[in-house]
């Protein structure tokens, strides 16, 4: 089992100021990093920037966590990850951060978020997304989380998806209405 480094708690982000060049770079690169020998030089060529400047701006966008990850994105369904479960936990407020991190450190967990309860109908405040080859795998991984993070006395529910609609949708923002993001990350 691979374990990740602990990350800082990230509150919901507030809007950050970007200059015109950052916006142009973000808009251009959402189509993907060019498949060429010198992709950053090519991007710079289109933007009127040097390769150095493109790389520096990308570094800053990553440091500021505006770019959360800059790599390839797989189609999990096509790669055999056919089961996805949203597991929701009813965790005492003072333990959410600790347990959210504990859950988030394992490599089969793709998301770990705190969300508000909606009492009395919905008491769950910690949401975990797990993708797996089949339901059995996913349930085994949930059991593993329960043991490793001492969740045996925490009430939880497992919600497997049975159908999906609109897998990829547009995400709106002021300078580019068509910006698309992986919908799994949104919300």
């Amino acid at each position, binding site marked *: 089992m691979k374990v990740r480094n602990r990350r800082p708690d990230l509150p919901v982000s507030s809007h950050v100021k970007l200059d015109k060049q950052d916006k142009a770079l973000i808009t251009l690169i959402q189509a993907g990093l060019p*498949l*060429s020998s010198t992709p950053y030089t090519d991007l710079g060529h289109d933007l009127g920037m040097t390769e150095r400047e493109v790389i520096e701006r990308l570094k800053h966008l990553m440091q500021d966590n505006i770019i959360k*990850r800059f790599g*390839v*994105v797989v189609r999990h369904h096509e790669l055999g990850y056919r089961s996805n479960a949203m597991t929701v936990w009813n965790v005492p407020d003072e333990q959410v951060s600790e347990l959210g991190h504990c859950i988030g450190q394992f490599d089969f967990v793709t998301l770990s978020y705190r969300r508000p309860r909606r009492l009395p109908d919905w008491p769950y405040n910690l949401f975990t997304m797990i993708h797996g080859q089949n339901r059995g795998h996913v349930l085994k991984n949930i059991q593993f989380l329960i043991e490793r993070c001492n969740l045996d006395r925490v009430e939880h529910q497992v919600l497997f998806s049975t159908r999906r*609609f609109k897998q990829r949708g547009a*995400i709106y*923002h002021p300078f580019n209405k068509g910006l698309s993001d992986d919908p799994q990350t949104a919300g």
Partner: protein
Amino acid sequence: MMDELDRKIINDLQAGFPLTEQPYAEVAARHGITESELLSRLQQLLDNKTLSRFGPMYDAEKLGGAFTLAAMQVPEQDFDKVAEVVNSYAEVAHNYQRDHQFNMWYVLATETPDQINLVNRDIEKRTGLKVFSMPKLTEYYIGLQLPV
């Protein structure tokens, strides 16, 4: 289909592209192949839709958008009708049916927080069902990096 080397390359590049002058040459060297072989493998993985995207994943909230995850309890016999209503909104980025009493889960993405409420109220009005909106409060982990 994908071979063992493709898998290694995907797992490597899910973590990130090098920010260097010739990032693909650097990755190719790590795997003992030429840059042009790496590029042609990547092109093929994009063409056969193993990879969906090839670039950055943004924090769209920082770019000025607003988001929420919303849930509904839809009676079984009305599910398709309600799904049609919900899916008709351009602001609905995706929508999943799940096997639970709360059986419809959709993500809304709008330009401003006010629009989140407007869309949810509109969906309630059109479906007669209550919408439970649960925006993210804190993020402990996000990755969507899956070992392949």
